[in-house]
């Protein structure tokens, strides 16, 4: 990666405050995604929900907030959108209580 930033073993940002749009572009490139407006609409929705509710949202919620159908989200982030969105948006990975 060309930007020095700390991630955990699975590649999620360790410190939320390290996130910037510039970093997101870099992270996305490393994950094989070139970010356009449609990607940003999804990423901004995920970031907003996470900051409001304290947890990383599922795809249905992201889909509604960003007004992007789930099928389209899969086209934007083809290799596992839930993980890719969380990694690029700099929010924790979606998890359960165990």
């Amino acid at each position, binding site marked *: 990666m060309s930007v020095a930033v700390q991630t955990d073993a699975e590649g999620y940002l360790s410190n939320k405050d390290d996130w910037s749009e510039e970093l997101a572009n870099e992270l996305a490139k490393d994950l094989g995604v070139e970010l356009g407006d449609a990607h940003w609409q999804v990423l901004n929705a995920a970031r907003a929900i996470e900051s409001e509710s304290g*947890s990383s949202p599922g795809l249905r919620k992201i889909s509604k907030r960003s007004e992007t159908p789930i099928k389209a989200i899969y086209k934007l982030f083809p290799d596992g959108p839930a993980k890719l969105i969380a990694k690029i948006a700099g929010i924790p990975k979606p998890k359960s209580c165990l």
Partner: protein
Amino acid sequence: MKTILILGAGTAGTAMAHKMRRRLSSDWEVAVVDPSTTHIYQPGLLFLPFGDETEARIVRERGATLGKGITWHKTEVKAIDTERRVVEVAEGNPLAYDFLIIASGTEVRPDMIEGMLDGGWRKSVFDFYTLEGAKALQGALARYEGGRLVINVVEMPIKCPVAPLEFTFLADAYLTKRGIRDKTELVYATPLDAAFTKPLASQTLGYLLEDKGVQVETELMTGEVDSEKNVIRSYDEREVPYDLLVTIPPHTGVGFLEDSPLGDELGFVPTDPHTLAVKGVDNVFCIGDATDLPSSKAGSVAHFQVDLLSENILRAIDGKELEPTFDGHSNCFVETGHGKAMLIDFNYETEPLPGQFPIPGLGPLPLLKEARRNHWAKLAFRWVYWNALLPARPIPISPTMSLAGKQLSAAAEAGGS
């Protein structure tokens, strides 16, 4: 007369009504609004499909669960008007409130998935989060002779997030007992990246899936159930075939919140994580499964919230500031089959850790570890629920989480938080 109005008489609403009735003078009316005439002990729904629980033991008339001095409006909520401080209902005049507590829970929504309610519904496709579903599944399991049994969590958040795993473990034990385990492929399909998503849980509990021969299908975003071909189809066009599908459909808030500015995209209520006040409005609070909080949608959480919110409402009545007391505390038994269970105790900040509960070094209940004692405690909890939790009688477990008796280094060693 002033009024505390509680929307929903499930676990959170019923306990809250009793708590406020005990704490407030007769100058206050405590009222609940709920159209349903029965109260279900939901943890029992996990056991019902395997014939280890009966409807009679887990269902009571709602009237019998609401004590004296609590008004019950047996009608449906239509809308909340926070400006005028009234709740519009299907039958009768609008209900005025001084304090409003939303405790309307969450609904299981098979209708949100294409094909789920088609021909296979409750023939080869079952839910167990409803009484009807759990009863129908009991019949289907009794007739089951082997094949692919798929347990599919469609989308988070769900009620009792460990219940689908518990169901999987209990199914393994049930099928073994019936002598058809070797004729069954047991599959756990999740939208998350693993069955256990936290490093410590994955490290210490991964053996459960391995020992029980459970196949795990990860990152499966169910888009469609095709009950002619008996397959789940995901958005990335993977197909998971089943002979018997046990689905945990998406959950949303109830109807009057889905269409209301008080609800988010899925109808859950944006709530302050520590005071439980509903964001952006005065004198309205939210507890239980209806919130958008990252705490588990579980009965123990509702119970702890009731304890803490009742104190905050008394502060508000006295004109004092609310205190940020709720820490996301959750305390859940996790059935692992063959008469054993685990106990997990955690909050917003601290993941489930190994240790002893409730007394450090003594227990008697071991945390994050299988034990027969935990299973018996889970079974005994039904009595506690009806006789202490719902009527809001004291239960000697702190509403906030304690670190005493927990092995703090365990999570760091596993690479977690």
